[in-house]
């Protein structure tokens, strides 16, 4: 213990002294370059964890949510625009993204201990997993939907009567947000007992 404290003190005395041999210019410039490399590397690594290849590299994601996504309009449609996992599940804003990535450490834990490593276990956790996402989207006013779907650019005359009626009332006055009605558009819904009464068998 004493040795460690001694080492720490030694380190502090070295750090607190001005540089003897290195010029201030060298230190500033090399510090700047190192910073850029570190920052760039950090962001690149983080962006790597935002790719579809990364998300579907685990069988849990590849065999369950990714399979279900492929039958939906967010994967295949007439104009070829598509959303990947992170478009909906990771905030685009940097600070929010970091917060989400820190939360995701729990998912690493789940991966290591095989929380959802079989189809049965995944089905068992489906409601809880879905509820996490609904809560998040409800809290941020469906931010990830709105990254692509702009309310101001919606042409109600091009929507069906029902859609236009809902969007121009409940959505327009902020009473509801996208996720309130559009649950289960990219993945299958679990038994909704207790969430939406009367829509699931007992």
């Amino acid at each position, binding site marked *: 213990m004493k040795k460690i404290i001694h080492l720490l003190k030694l380190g502090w005395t070295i750090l607190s002294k001005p540089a003897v041999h290195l010029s201030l210019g060298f230190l500033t410039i090399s510090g700047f370059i190192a910073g850029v490399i570190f920052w760039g590397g950090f962001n690149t690594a983080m962006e790597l964890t935002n790719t579809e290849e990364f998300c579907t590299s685990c069988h849990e994601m590849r065999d369950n949510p990714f399979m279900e996504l492929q039958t939906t309009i967010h994967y295949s449609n007439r104009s070829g625009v598509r959303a990947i996992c992170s478009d909906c599940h990771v905030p685009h804003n940097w600070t929010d993204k970091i917060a989400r990535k820190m939360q995701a450490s729990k998912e690493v834990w789940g991966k290591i201990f095989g929380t959802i490593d079989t189809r049965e276990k995944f089905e068992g956790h489906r409601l809880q997993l879905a509820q996490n996402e609904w809560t998040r989207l409800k809290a941020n006013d469906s931010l990830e939907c709105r990254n692509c779907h702009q309310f101001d650019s919606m042409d109600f005359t091009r929507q069906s009567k*029902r859609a236009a009626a809902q969007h121009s009332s409940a959505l327009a006055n902020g009473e509801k947000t996208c996720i309130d009605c559009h649950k*289960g558009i990219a993945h*299958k819904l679990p038994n909704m007992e207790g969430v939406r009464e009367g*829509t699931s*068998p007992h």
Partner: protein
Amino acid sequence: MKALSLKNVSTLCMTAALAVSSVMMPSIASAADAVIDNAPQVSTLRGVAPLNAEPTPPMIEKVENNDLKRQRDYPQQPPTIPHDISKYQLDKNFNKCMDCHSRKFADEAQAPAVSVTHYMNRDGDFLGEVSPRRYFCTQCHVHQLESKPLVENEFVDMEKLIRKSHKQAK
């Protein structure tokens, strides 16, 4: 008789085949072929492609989506669905239809609530939930396509028949 019309030929074949079929089973196949050859060009859902070939899928038809109720052809007819239901989840976990058509949500969606018969079991008792035998909506209720009918519809409304028989009685 210079030339038999195609129809006559096939009818003859069919009659002959039917006559023989009681004795010889394989003739049924030729009888069926004759009937198919003579039928108007209505193909199966799979199309006319041979069994060992992959047919080109047809264009997706436009689904009626005007929210206007259609007239029912007879009193017991399950109403048709006047809107698009593509990709609606309807499985053992979730029923998307009931998301709007259940009694609880019919007001916010302004959708017709399913009738009380959907809550009755086969003995006529009312259940608290939709009866399992009525759970899968699309068994009876179907959406409509905005396409030209393949064959003419000769359905006669029950009321018309009754009126006709009344007139004849007079």
